[in-house]
């Protein structure tokens, strides 16, 4: 949480202030009225600030020093492929001064390690924990130093920490290993009162290196245990009846002949829940057909309804960016306008929702593929009407997250069935459940207007976007009431070209009858597609080359300087300005997410009526890069995920059902369509910024802009379809 209260046993509270989202406007802002407050919150968020929550920074919670000198780091953040466990291990080892091979990393259990009050999301892990984790590690080092000094009878400042040892300066024979210091220690550990001195950037030996990922051997030998793999003796498998349509609820539920089916141990019908626990997964699923269930009709939602609702309405929404006076200047000069659309999308992570839960009278244990163990603990405790302290969540390896692992249902379902059977129960969804019972990236509609002055410069720019909920769907209604516009939905939607004097961005909340929520990058892909597609249209209307047009609209401030650097780096890598190979053309786009700035150039051709992307050149300013190879992996992954949305993915609805039964009707991009991806990092500074989502931003716009350069067709909706 923001600032933990001073606690004798615990750690000195961090000096850093973590602002919570709702505290930002403050009382003073309220006096200005709701729209001003909403704009105030929007401005704070738009600077790349992020509501942040951390557990206590007590080193004894984070670190275990084992007798054989290994150091085990318990992390509250979930490794779902982003490489954060490796990056955080580098950060910790740097200050703790332990050899790389002696440090091991595990997911913290909610019972023993630091607990994340939020979730692993928003590209916030490395940037958010960089400073706190260095401080915790440095404090542990100083505690060991003070104790070693006592044991050796020398002043603490005469000891040098290096390679997991403390030795007296100039007397290498007087050395104690950390393990020895701990073994000989009696009594309590003294917490140093002074804040620790942290290593200057120039002395880093691990941070900035491409250290190999700490979790890969387990993942390449089949030994890594994911939520779907977790096993316990005597366990059962659960299956749950799913509503036939959106909004259908159980009018009545009877066991029918389900209990008599082979392998079935229990049938549970409670309220809107009907599930079976059986000796095998197949038996549990087969028994579902023998339940006697009556469902209410639910809602017959059609895709056309969703499209109609997701429509910008004049004057609606909340102003989230206001520079100058756009409305007064949109009518001047040469006016242009365009509309962009993006569809719904599924997360389609390859390991469906899964959890194993063991309910015992004294305690409950939950093994789960989850992005939010703290929240799962809370929800399971509530569902079972127990104290939170009696529930332990043990996060496993996780087969993809992308926002979808904020869902607690697999654990709640397994918990009910385990309580009913007094045996551990595993619930692992099948692909159809995963695709049909999930929540989705919301559809968006964007109305863009601009005016060009006589010299071809943008005088005024307006972006009005309408989107289904992203964060609001997971937050209490009061958040929506106060903020008005979903900051997840308009993420990446403000216009950062500082030399455009009049800019207005309006975000309009659309309440949809279908479940929507966070998807990697939130609104970033959709908003960048609209903004950067339209910037390209403006360049064309002004008769200017797209790179030069963008550069001349950048401000002279820090933000403008950083955009210029990524634009120049990406275009240089892509040989922008030289002719593309025969039959190909290039397109450019740029985005900001949090504080990370990304520019990409796509090189495309059209083959058999389909867009083919050959190469993406990507320049990223994410500040200090902790692990260059890991960060490069994140670029590659984000580009592929963005490209799959650009060329292929679209989730539609018919008669109240998501039209995706399996990968035959919701296909993903494969290696056959994977471009070469060339990445360069151009950031500066002493702090890492977010990396997991930002590179997804420009993909769709860069490709669409390249398609325009090649064919003259301006494609304004995803997935891109040539006329």
């Amino acid at each position, binding site marked *: 949480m923001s600032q933990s209260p001073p606690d004798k046993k615990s750690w000195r509270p961090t000096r850093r202030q973590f602002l919570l989202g709702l505290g930002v406007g403050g009382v003073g802002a309220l006096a200005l009225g709701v729209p001003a407050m909403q704009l105030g919150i929007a401005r704070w968020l738009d600077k790349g600030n992020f509501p942040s929550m951390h557990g206590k920074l007590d080193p004894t919670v984070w670190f275990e020093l084992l007798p054989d000198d290994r150091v085990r780091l318990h992390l509250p953040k979930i490794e779902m*492929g982003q490489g954060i466990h490796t990056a955080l291990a580098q950060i910790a080892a740097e200050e703790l001064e332990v050899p790389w091979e002696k440090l091991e990393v595990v997911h913290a259990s909610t019972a023993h390690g630091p607990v994340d009050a939020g979730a692993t999301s928003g590209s916030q892990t490395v940037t958010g924990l960089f400073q706190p984790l260095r401080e915790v590690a440095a404090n542990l080092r100083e505690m060991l130093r003070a104790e070693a000094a006592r044991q050796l009878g020398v002043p603490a400042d005469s000891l040098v920490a290096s390679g997991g040892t403390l030795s007296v300066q100039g007397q290498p024979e007087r050395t104690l290993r950390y393990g020895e210091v701990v073994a000989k220690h009696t009594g309590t550990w003294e917490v140093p009162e002074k804040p620790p001195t942290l290593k200057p950037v120039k002395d880093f030996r691990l941070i900035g290196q491409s250290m190999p990922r700490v979790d890969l051997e387990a993942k390449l030998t089949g030994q890594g245990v994911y939520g779907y793999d977790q096993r316990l003796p005597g366990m059962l498998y659960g299956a749950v009846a799913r509503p036939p349509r959106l909004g259908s609820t159980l009018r009545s539920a009877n066991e029918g002949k389900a209990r008599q089916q082979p392998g079935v141990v229990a049938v549970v019908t409670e309220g809107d829940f009907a599930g079976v626990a059986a000796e095998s997964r197949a038996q549990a699923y087969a028994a579902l057909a023998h339940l006697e269930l009556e469902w209410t009709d639910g809602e017959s939602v059609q895709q056309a309804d969703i499209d109609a609702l997701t429509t910008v309405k004049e004057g609606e929404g909340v102003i989230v960016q206001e520079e100058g006076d756009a409305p007064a200047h949109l009518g001047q000069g040469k006016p242009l306008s365009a509309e962009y659309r993006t569809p719904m999308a599924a997360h389609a992570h390859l390991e469906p929702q899964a959890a194993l839960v063991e309910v015992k009278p004294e305690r409950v244990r939950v093994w789960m593929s989850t992005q939010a163990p703290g929240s799962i603990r809370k929800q399971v405790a509530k569902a079972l009407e127990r104290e939170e302290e009696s529930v332990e969540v043990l996060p496993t390896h996780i087969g993809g997250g992308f926002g979808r692992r904020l869902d607690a249902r697999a654990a709640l379902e397994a918990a009910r069935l385990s309580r009913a059977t007094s045996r551990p129960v595993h619930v692992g969804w099948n692909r159809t459940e995963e695709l049909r019972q999930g929540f989705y990236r919301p559809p968006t509609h964007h109305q863009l207007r601009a005016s060009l002055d006589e010299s071809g410069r943008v005088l005024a720019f307006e972006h009005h976007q309408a989107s289904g909920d992203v964060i609001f769907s997971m937050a209490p209604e009061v958040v929506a009431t106060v903020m008005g516009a979903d900051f997840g939905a308009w993420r990446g939607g403000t216009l950062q070209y500082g030399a455009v004097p009049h800019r207005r961005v309006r975000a309009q909340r659309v309440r949809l009858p279908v479940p929507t929520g966070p998807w990697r990058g939130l609104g970033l892909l959709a908003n960048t597609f609209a903004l950067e597609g339209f910037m390209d249209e403006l360049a064309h209307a002004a008769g200017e080359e797209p790179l030069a047009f963008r550069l001349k609209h950048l401000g002279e401030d820090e933000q403008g300087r950083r955009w210029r650097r990524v634009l120049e780096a990406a275009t240089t890598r892509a040989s922008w300005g030289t002719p593309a190979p025969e039959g190909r053309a290039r397109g450019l786009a740029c985005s900001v997410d949090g504080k990370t700035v990304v520019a990409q150039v796509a090189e495309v051709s059209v083959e058999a009526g389909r867009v083919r992307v050959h190469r993406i050149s990507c320049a990223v300013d994410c500040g200090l890069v902790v692990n260059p190879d890991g960060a490069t992996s994140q670029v590659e992954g984000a580009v592929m995920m963005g490209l799959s949305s650009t060329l292929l993915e679209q989730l539609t609805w018919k008669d109240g059902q998501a039209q995706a039964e399996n990968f035959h009707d919701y296909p993903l991009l494969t290696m*056959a369509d994977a471009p070469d991806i060339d990445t360069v990092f151009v950031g500066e500074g002493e702090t890492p910024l977010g990396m997991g989502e930002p590179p997804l931003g420009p993909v769709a716009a860069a490709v669409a802009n390249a398609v325009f350069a090649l064919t003259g067709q301006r494609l304004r909706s995803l997935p891109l379809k040539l006329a």
Partner: protein
Amino acid sequence: MKLIINEREYEVSDENPARVLLWVLRDELGLVGTRFGCGAGLCGACTVHVNGVATRACISPVSMMEGARIRTVEGLARTGPDGKPVLHPVQRAFLDVQVPQCGWCMSGQMMTAAALLEQNPSPTPQQVVDAMSHNYCRCGTYCRIKKAVLSAADKLAQETKP
């Protein structure tokens, strides 16, 4: 019914012969390294070798497996003279190239790659793409998979050189 998996014999029930190999491996025998992704043979996460051929375990009835040589990711590494596991060249290449992100699809990717290299020890880049384009990776590691499979082919060539 006897199954031969990773050169070891397993006895499994004769009941429900239509049940698929994937759940027999995972839920009956505890070989959970073979992953579930779609249950319809579409994503490739469950790929194993049956008599050396890359096969989707999620749509393969166990009754057709009697007497066949089945190899899963757990049998990809071999045991070295010192009793320690020696990673398969494909595993080593995937490690060297730092391929996996979440890792869930990786058993299937590596089994597909290993089967390809057994049939075609020195594939062209296009042959790698053709063979690997039926395995999904949602984390989007495709360019690294391609690089690793070509690198594994080089490793194999080095190791089998006379």
